[in-house]
């Protein structure tokens, strides 16, 4: 990077007057939350119909792996939030490092999830069981979102590497999407691993 971080320092936005990211990304996030809300309600309805079967199947999931993945994603969100603060303060090198750290957590989350799927399938817990159908579909769609999130983080890093660009709004948009992924995972973790 050739421009000193202090040279690109921007004035902090006036509190309460500016929407982080842009309206387009908020449309995406609110719509996505609505769609996932539909999936969650459907899961709870089916769970209420077959409570005993779902509870018995749930016991085969490793809560430890679920907690580990939750900690990994929450840590990634912390890095992402710090990256936005760094961009707003003009500390662009630091922001890039934090975005890389966010992406690394996302990759680690994916690896842990792949290991968990492999372990469950190896023990014979497949889509033949209704609970595990929901488990694979909900975590699978969430993983697709993690992949989209990693692409958006890549776009943000590319934006910061280009001296002619460096728009804070682009970083905010990708971080907003990443926070949504985190929020969705917390709900999925509670529904699939903890709800009895």
């Amino acid at each position, binding site marked *: 990077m050739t421009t000193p971080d202090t040279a690109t320092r921007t004035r902090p936005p006036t509190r309460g007057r500016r929407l982080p990211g842009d309206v*387009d990304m908020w449309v995406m996030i609110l719509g996505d939350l609505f*769609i996932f809300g539909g*999936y969650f309600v*459907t899961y709870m309805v089916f769970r209420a119909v077959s409570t005993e079967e779902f509870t018995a199947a749930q016991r085969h999931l490793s809560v430890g792996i679920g907690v580990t993945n939750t900690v990994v994603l929450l840590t990634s969100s912390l890095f992402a939030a710090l990256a936005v603060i760094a961009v707003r303060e003009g500390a662009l090198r630091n922001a890039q490092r934090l975005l890389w750290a966010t992406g690394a957590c996302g990759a680690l989350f994916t690896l842990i999830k792949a290991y968990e799927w492999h372990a469950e399938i190896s023990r014979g817990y497949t889509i033949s069981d209704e609970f595990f159908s929901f488990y694979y579909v909900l975590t699978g769609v969430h993983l697709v979102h993690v992949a989209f999130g990693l692409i958006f983080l890549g776009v943000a890093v590319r934006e910061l590497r280009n001296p002619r660009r460096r728009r804070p709004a682009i970083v905010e948009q990708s971080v907003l999407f990443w926070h949504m992924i985190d929020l969705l995972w917390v709900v999925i973790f509670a529904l699939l691993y903890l709800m009895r």
Partner: protein
Amino acid sequence: MTDTATTVTEDGPGKPARPERAGKREVWLFYWAFSIFYTALSVGICLLGRATPPPRPDVDALQATAWFDQHQWGIQVGFVFLLVIAGGAAISNGMIGYFMMRMSSGRTLAYAYIASMGVGAIPGFQLLLVCWLTATFRPDREPRILYLLYDLGMLSYNGSLGCFTAAYTVMALAILYDKNRIFPKWFAYVTIWQIVTEIMATQMWLYNSGAFAWNGVITLYIAVVVFGVWIICFLALFRIAARRETAQTPALYEPEGAR
């Protein structure tokens, strides 16, 4: 963008003139063709053909035969009508391709969209019509054959989603890369929801009942709501984009130096 004309009018110089709507009559013609085709498609598929909402996936051969018998006239009238107007899908895809070619993201994505939707229309539309029309025009065939046509029609119609996923992906990419702002960026995100629901719908091959069957809440009803939102947004944006087309808008295939 080159599609907003500013001319001197009776109101005085400097005031923007109203866009010359008559300049691109063919765009409006195809806009209405698009709207009418989708309306006819909804009537044929939903009200007459009974493919949406779908019949039950967990029936046996005799029940499937009885279902065809019960809905014979609706399927025949609705699906023969749809077979006649099936070319409307090509007009719709072509219209979307026209606007995608106006994007700065390039024509390759527009061609990819048209090709993906064109290929997808065969399993996702034509095969359903052919299977169910065969079943209703040949009711004397063995129940197990009619049962196969029942399953094949529905699984092909709702489960053959790879081409549509590809089409929505290139459309979302084209909008996100476009600097001419033909369609707003939020519509690319709405299109990404479509991709997700299409991926979810693949589950219907594995289940005969429940949330993931072809009549399931997740694979069908939530996907239908998302598609409804997408098509309403698309028609509104299509209308706005068509309104911007004036006599001054350059032709797509005009030589570069003539613009």
